[in-house]
């Protein structure tokens, strides 16, 4: 009897910018969690992890993170992944204000 598989997304950091990114179904990297491919099958998850990890000149630190289907696309389940979709809680910096790493955009 196999345990029910928790759906996953493939996530990483952008090599140049450092920003959190997610793998989409058509092999692009998106900054939006909701646009990620939600992977519902374990074997497929391992395959997609390899696909993501193969893109060594675009991303770093590729891994699978738990997620669930939401009304607008996949949503993170663990608080760490929730923070990664937003940015830090002490400043209005990062994704929560539509901002990337690097100097504040004018």
């Amino acid at each position, binding site marked *: 009897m196999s345990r029910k598989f928790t759906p996953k997304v493939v996530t990483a950091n952008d*090599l140049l910018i450092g*920003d959190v990114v997610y793998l989409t179904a058509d092999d692009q990297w998106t900054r939006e969690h909701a646009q990620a491919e939600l992977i519902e099958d374990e074997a497929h998850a391992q395959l997609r992890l390899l696909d993501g990890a193969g893109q060594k000149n675009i991303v770093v630190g590729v891994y699978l993170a738990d997620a669930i289907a939401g009304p607008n696309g996949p949503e993170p389940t663990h608080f760490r992944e929730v923070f990664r979709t937003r940015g830090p809680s002490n*400043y209005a910096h990062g994704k929560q204000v539509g901002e990337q790493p690097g100097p504040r955009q004018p």
Partner: protein
Amino acid sequence: MYSYNEFDEAFVRERVAQFSQQVARRIDGSLTEDEFKPLRLMNGLYLQLHAYMLRVAIPYGTINPTQMRQLAHIAQTWDKGYGHFTTRQNIQFNWPLLKDVPAILSALADVGMHAIQTSGNTIRNVTADHFAGAAEDEIEDPRPYAELLRQWSTDHPEFQFLPRKFKIAVTGSPNDRAVVKSHDIGLRMIRRGSQVGFEVLVGGGLGRTPMIGQVVRDFLPIPDLLPYCEAIVSVYNLLGRRDNKYKARVKITVHENGLEEIQRQVEARFAEIRPTFHGHDQALLDDIRAAFAPPAFRNAPTDAHDTALADPVYRAWADTNLATHRNAQYAIVTISLKKHGETPGDATAHQMRVMADIAERFAHGELRISHEQNVILPHVHKSDLPMVHAMLQQAGLGTANVGLISDIIACPGMDYCALATARSIPVAQQIATRFEELKLEHDVGPLKIKISGCINACGHHHVGHIGILGLDRAGVENYQITLGGDGTETAVIGERAGPGFAYDEIVPAIERLVRAYLDVRSEPSETFLQTYRRLGLGPFKAALYPAEGAQDAA
């Protein structure tokens, strides 16, 4: 203050050039991440949760106004306008782009700064008492020794691949403000008869197995400093475990082999290498000492300060943020980077510039970064204090809370750190805000809260009077409290109080704890730590877990 000689300058420039090439090769794909990672770590560049992070060393916490302005410039040009000062006298920039890092390192080199050996299994930034050269209780300024150790350890060929990171701290006073007992090597200056030397501690450390350093040599004459430290590190280099990262620090080596065996091997190794030091290091030390000569202190009336004490706001600041200087006309100013509700240890580019200006005009051009994440003006003439206070206040830097409950050490935690298991910054912000609302903190008096966002203990929670450790318990943030820790010359590791608290329960729990202290202290002058030492865990546990107490009673 010490400035680079030609050798330092050439070395740092060469490193910047080298790393710029490495970044370029990473960007064009000719270096893989596996190849690049150790290289970037050697240069202080981490990848955190949301971005890269660059850690810059501030050796023994000493920095001049020009350097501080350059940090402001970097914060503004390549980051989001601020920097984070850490417990190891470093500054971290949280948002650099990979392509900008060479430019940042080059800007640092322009002012004699770098990020070398701020990461990796090397000898890290040597830290020192932030009151060095000014403290009343000081035997000697520890910074020349820290500088000597820095020069010896930087790029030392034998010590670039140690079993694990290696941290050294030095204090020149019997009162330990540099937490030397939680370092791999702690050096505490002492006097024996007419001679000055060091008590040498080894094997201190926090992290997952916190340990207090043990005395490996009770009195080390100054000329033996380098060969003796070299003996310790080289014994560790051989004995230290490389099979298990969690057992690799020297504290474990000492624990597993026993202090006596370590002592025996260190002394044997010392006897071997001592003759190879021909006194060149001592000549160097003399030059270094000259660079740390005290400033030309002014001789002037101090009544401006005495008059200003009539103002309660100034008075409160003077009570908490000033320390006794060895020159009675002077004071040591601690600038609090702990304004209630702000992020502990953060300063904006504007604030950095204000501090640089003040240091230049009123503090003989000196600034220090403390391990408690504050900034120190070590030499301010008392007549200038009212002006300094006014300028600090205008920049949001006049908070009167040094040593109080809102002067919290907090690591970056899960707001930035990829290793974190919970957040620490918002917990610190909320505790400070809560006690500000209650107007209780001056009544509570000296109390050190220290918060880490995971077991690595970067926030020193083990040595906080109240320590808070953030964990991930079944997918939610959970905070464990330790009590009675102490990071001074009477160092102890705190004791766990009991089960942890959820994110929204931790601030009320701390409030109950502090109220319990107010109830049971013998008199207002008995500090939290003294009360804890007198009464033990009992009354605090009862306050933390009232329901259980009620159950037991039933």
